[in-house]
């Protein structure tokens, strides 16, 4: 029973990302939206933590949020649009929004 974890807050101003990384199951997915895409900023401890996730955990980021913040998805992450976001929510058994 895999869960898609949905993060939308800056990983530099609170602990949602680090808590989420501790709780992730081996087949869970992680989708970064809004300020959470700042976790993909090169040269940060946050990106390093994401790169260290087991390969079984899929990592996604919303493309329009990347563009707005002048960020690019690294090879480990897949940039997706809103239709793909919806499709992804259906693919996992549960969606956990870190509000």
């Amino acid at each position: 029973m895999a869960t898609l974890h949905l993060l939308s807050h800056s990983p530099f101003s609170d602990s949602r990302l680090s808590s989420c990384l501790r709780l992730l199951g081996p087949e869970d997915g992680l989708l970064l939206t809004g300020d959470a895409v700042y976790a993909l900023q090169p040269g940060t401890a946050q990106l390093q933590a994401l790169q260290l996730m087991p390969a079984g955990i899929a990592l996604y980021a919303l493309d329009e949020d990347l563009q707005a913040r002048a960020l690019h998805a690294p090879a480990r992450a897949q940039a997706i649009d809103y239709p793909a976001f919806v499709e992804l929510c259906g693919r996992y058994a549960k969606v956990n929004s870190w509000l």
Partner: protein
Amino acid sequence: MSKSMLIISRQAPWAGPSAREALDIALAGGAFDLPLGLLFLDDGVFQLAAGQQPGALQQKDLSANLQALPLFGVEELFVSSRSLAERGLDEAALALPAERLDDTALTLLLDRFDLVVTI
């Protein structure tokens, strides 16, 4: 003699209105010739990243407001070098020439202004 004020902007640009509002305060104060300083701290340093395209989110670009600061007489612009380094921006070219200050220099900076407001 007007009191001097330091505005500390510490929110990232696109998740809420705070970043724009801090800039609006600075521009309004500058228009009235108030002695203002503006410090970018914590996630506020993301406002200075080059090449942002907020049109993707149907938001107005903040960079025009940033560029207007010197024209409105707000020339004392500072940024925390620690905040830049934590966010991988220490080597990056910034959209606005702001003086990079370490934590010790920031303490002295806050001392120098009569009023300080953090947004």
